[in-house]
């Protein structure tokens, strides 16, 4: 429909803009008065935290790119120059380097939140799937970013990961050559990885926009997993959740700062401070910690193509998760069996991460295979079956009832959040 927007803003300049391009109205509707379930716990901070982490990564990344040289002969030295001679270059780089870890920590907790409280279920399937797309893009971006300093682990990590595609029959070798831009990981590879490492974050921004847009159609899930039934069940996003997110952001920044200022290389691999050398293979080639679980799955399968397919499958299975879970109940609070299984999955993924950091020898192989089996068993067998067999607990009538009811013990302790009552 053509016509000026009817703005409710009083300020003449704001009103002038808003009638022509209603961005102020949009912000007011989506972040101001946006009705949000009143019973969020602090797990609902992690979407906002991921947004903050993403912005920090993009801003620091832009400044790093001003000083970085994507050339195999100069890349390592240019990073050291950033560390030594660029004003506060060490700060920018350490913030960026550890920011990748912080981004993944936050996103993994965000994903766990979605799993535990059933946020992927109807009508939020597409919202969830967009999230999985973001995870995939993040993994690609992080991997290519790790190649840029052109240390030993950069080079050999790039070699191992790109070589995975050679497992595919017939086209495999051609794909690898195409990815490399030559016949080994070399300058053309570094150039294109730099280009894509700069591009993909903006693709992530675009998908995040869609993710948030979809969220604002369905509205947020909540710890009870039941839809708000009226205004008594919701609060305006601002100021209630802007301030609650701000608390989370402060705590997030404390952890982040502790890493950056006091242990900036704690999560890194010492080998990446050795310049890349195609003639010397490191004793062990390991990815960054946030990719270790997938690496463990890859190495748990005795067949190369099988391992590659399982590794990709471990992410792809998340796309169909909304249809694998047959239970209509969202929140694990009301699903006693699912609750145990999903917490076991968390431990399972941590174990997989541990396995990924060790040589696939002796017990690590056995543990890796068991953990891989449980991962797929959970999604492909347990979820569909448990959804049918499990007897969920009785759901509360509405969000406001247990929240405002006060007093007596309630399922999962929704009102007894110590941080809000203390």
């Amino acid at each position: 429909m053509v016509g000026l927007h009817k703005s409710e803003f009083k300020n003449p300049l704001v009103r002038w803009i808003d009638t022509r391009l209603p961005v102020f109205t949009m912000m007011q509707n989506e972040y101001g008065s946006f009705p949000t379930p009143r019973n969020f716990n602090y797990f609902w901070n992690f979407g906002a935290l991921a947004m903050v982490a993403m912005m920090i990564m993009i801003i620091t990344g832009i400044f790093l790119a001003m000083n970085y040289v994507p050339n195999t002969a100069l890349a390592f030295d240019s990073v050291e120059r950033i560390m030594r001679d660029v004003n506060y270059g060490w700060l920018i780089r350490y913030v960026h380097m550890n920011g990748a870890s912080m981004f993944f920590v936050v996103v993994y907790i965000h994903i766990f939140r979605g799993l535990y409280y059933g946020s992927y279920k109807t009508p939020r399937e597409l919202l969830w799937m967009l999230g999985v797309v973001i995870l995939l893009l993040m993994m690609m971006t992080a991997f290519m970013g790790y190649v840029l300093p052109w240390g030993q682990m950069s080079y050999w990590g790039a070699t191992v990961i790109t070589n995975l595609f050679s497992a595919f029959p017939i086209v495999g070798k051609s794909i690898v050559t195409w990815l490399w831009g030559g016949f080994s990981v070399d300058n053309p590879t570094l150039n294109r990885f730099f280009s894509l490492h700069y591009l993909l974050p903006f693709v992530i921004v675009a998908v995040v926009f869609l993710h948030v847009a979809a969220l604002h159609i369905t509205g947020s899930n909540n710890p009870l997993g039941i839809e708000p039934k009226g205004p008594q069940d919701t609060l305006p996003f601002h100021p209630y959740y802007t301030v609650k997110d701000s608390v989370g952001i402060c705590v997030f920044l404390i952890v982040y700062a502790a890493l950056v200022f006091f242990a900036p290389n704690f999560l890194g691999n010492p080998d990446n401070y050795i310049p890349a050398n195609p003639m010397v293979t490191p004793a062990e080639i390991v990815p960054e910690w946030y990719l270790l679980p997938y690496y463990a799955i890859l190495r748990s399968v005795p067949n190369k193509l099988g391992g590659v397919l399982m590794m990709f499958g471990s992410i792809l299975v998340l796309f169909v998760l909304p249809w694998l879970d047959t239970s209509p109940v969202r929140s694990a609070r009301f699903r006693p069996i699912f609750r145990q299984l999903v917490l076991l999955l968390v431990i399972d993924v941590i174990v997989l991460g541990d396995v990924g950091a060790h040589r696939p020898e002796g017990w690590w192989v056995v543990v890796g295979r068991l953990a891989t089996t449980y991962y797929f068993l959970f999604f492909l067998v347990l979820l569909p079956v448990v959804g049918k067999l499990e007897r969920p607990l009785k759901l509360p009538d509405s969000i406001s009832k247990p929240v405002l009811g006060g007093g007596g013990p309630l399922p999962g302790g929704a009102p007894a959040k110590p941080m809000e009552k203390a």
Partner: protein
Amino acid sequence: MRRIPLARLILGAALGGLLAASSARAADDTKLPKVEWSFSGPFGTYDLASAQRGFLIYQQVCSNCHSMNQLYYRNLEGIGLSEEQIKAIAASVQVPGGVDDNGQPIQRPGRPADHFRAPFPNDQAARAANGGALPPDQSVLELAREGGADYLYALMVGYSDPPADMKMQPGMMYNRFFPGHQIAMPQPLQDGSVQYTDGTKPTLEQEAKDVVTFLAWAAEPEMVERKQMGVKIILFLLLLTGLTYAVKRKLWSDVH
């Protein structure tokens, strides 16, 4: 509530996994000796006297084989040397000075703005002079080895005769802390390898400690500034968190 033990279990497993992952590659049969470093801990700073003694060792011993390409002579201000001292140190070496009017390469005395002079013109020359082994660049060596400063110290003091049942490759030395225990570098430091001018007794342990302090500074010259900034930022964030939380409590007080 019932949720707390489970949450703790998960957190514990997560931390355990993280620690196990970070120590996974350190697994060797020899445990590194623990050294008290001036630069460890959140308030640690470099012991500049020790770093200066370490630089003396670098000049007289290490730099015969090892390059330190990321450093400039001007950086030595960071271990407390004066401008005059730095000028004199730089001028004591000859560096490539471009070409003369006939197009012939010339050498000139170094300046503070020059990179540390490398002992060999290229890797091949370095290998040829060192029995085929390439002495690694020392600029970020402290960051590039599992165990960091502790490992480098251990390496300096870890030389001995090989065990009777060990078959050594020709030209290799036994060092119990080196991966595989066979290292091409002959023992670089002994008691009295250098003469200290400040009266410190040059024992092997003292020399090792000093040179590693210097290498740690070289790898992370920004460390002191970083930690000092970190203390301020964390204090600020703690305050901000407290304030934000108070605002949050106040705003939410009418909801519950």
